[in-house]
């Protein structure tokens, strides 16, 4: 067994996962909230109004972090799906299935904020542009994964089937990301670059990056919270789960 699988088996042991995430969760939620507030303050109060869009542009501070998260959540789900299918690690199944609804919500927020922003910018709530369409397809993929997972009785079998579907759908993620470069779209190209200079003023950039960080932390906090619940459900027959829920005395009755 190589170190990677060994690590997975260790962190992937349900009691350890449960214990670690239980300790982590409050911290994750707290720091996400804190960073989020600082970012929002920076974005909504400190950053100057745009010379073209006046205050309407401020929706960027919700739209862009959520848009990034919608892709990141799918990516995270697909990686876990792959691990779940190849090494049959239960925690990965659960993590993949826990990230699907969260990713779907981020996708829906992206679509909603994008439409709201599109009305003043493009004069229409919706156009059939490559990025918008592929983001909508991403939402359908999330819904398909969730639907398949809920439609199968046996939880582990359901997770494996839905994980398989998630892997099949991953081709859409690069399409969403690169649509602005591959096609001539109404949606603007990438303005934030990790390598090289960003085409955005730094007074707008730092709140944006802080909010992106906050959404990532929030994502992990809620994935772990969801995963813990499904794990307890799945392992409800086991001693550790009983003692985790009912207290240490309950394990042996």
């Amino acid at each position: 067994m190589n170190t990677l699988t060994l690590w997975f088996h260790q962190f992937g042991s349900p009691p350890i996962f449960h214990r670690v995430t239980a300790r982590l969760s409050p911290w994750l939620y707290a720091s996400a909230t804190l960073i989020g507030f600082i970012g929002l303050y920076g974005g909504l109060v400190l950053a100057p109004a745009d010379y073209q869009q006046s205050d309407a542009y401020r929706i960027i501070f919700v739209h862009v972090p959520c848009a990034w998260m919608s892709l990141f959540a799918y990516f995270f789900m697909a990686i876990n799906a792959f691990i779940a299918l190849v090494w049959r690690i239960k925690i990965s199944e659960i993590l993949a299935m826990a990230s699907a609804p969260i990713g779907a919500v981020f996708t829906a927020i992206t679509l909603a904020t994008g439409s709201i922003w599109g009305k003043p910018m493009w004069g229409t709530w919706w156009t059939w542009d490559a990025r918008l369409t592929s983001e909508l397809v991403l939402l359908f993929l999330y819904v398909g994964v969730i639907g398949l997972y809920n439609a199968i009785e046996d939880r582990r079998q359901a997770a494996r089937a839905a994980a398989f579907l998630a892997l099949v759908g991953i081709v859409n993620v690069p399409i969403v990301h690169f649509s602005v470069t591959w096609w001539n779209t109404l949606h603007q190209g990438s303005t934030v670059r990790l390598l090289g200079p960003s085409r955005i003023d730094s007074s707008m950039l730092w709140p944006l990056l802080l909010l992106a960080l906050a959404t990532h932390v929030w994502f992990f906090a809620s994935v772990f919270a969801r995963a813990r619940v499904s794990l307890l459900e799945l392992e409800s027959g086991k001693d550790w789960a009983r003692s985790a829920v009912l207290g240490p005395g309950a394990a042996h009755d």
Partner: protein
Amino acid sequence: MRYGTTASACAALIRRDLVLTWRRRGDALNPAMFAMIVVVMFPLALGPEPNQLARIAAGILLVAILLAGMLALDNLFRSDHEDGTLEQLVLSPHPLSLLLASRIIVHWLTTALPLIVVAPLLAEMLHLPRSVLPVLLVALALATPLLSLLGAVCVALTVGMRRSGMLLALLVLPLYVPVLIFAAGACNAAQAGLPFLAPLLWLGAALALALVLAPMACAAALRISIT
């Protein structure tokens, strides 16, 4: 001995169906999702020019909603038939047509109503002129119960058949054509600035007729196909 009244039987059926829908509330979104996907396909297939889309938006929307409703028909009686409940209902001491009417009403509430709710969203995506939207919604409110009632008769005929999906489509769609013509007629007239009341009234009249006749036809069809 307490024999239940027909009212209490219908109430029990409605309560059960609502609870069942609630237990599987995820499924309730499926028809709406399906209609949305079908609607998405058209701009992709026809090209995205807003003007062209706006001209055909009402028609596409109606066809998409009609197809979604048709697919949703499948589980109108299927699960009740597969687990034997339908047989029990046929043998119950109450008028079968009333029991079926309750079932159809709940089915409409849980599958067609969500479709009507998302219709404005879909209309916006297809750039349907705002002025046409109210007419479209009224047309849908009249047409979808009609579709459910007509569809129920066809489903009753195919209940118990193995590969019924495609067959059902072939039975149902010809019956849906007149409904489609009137509903689309109203929308297109409104879009062209012409009077649109007449087709809506026709739809309303057909609905009133179907509300009376369809449950009885459905009961008769069910008795034929279940034995």
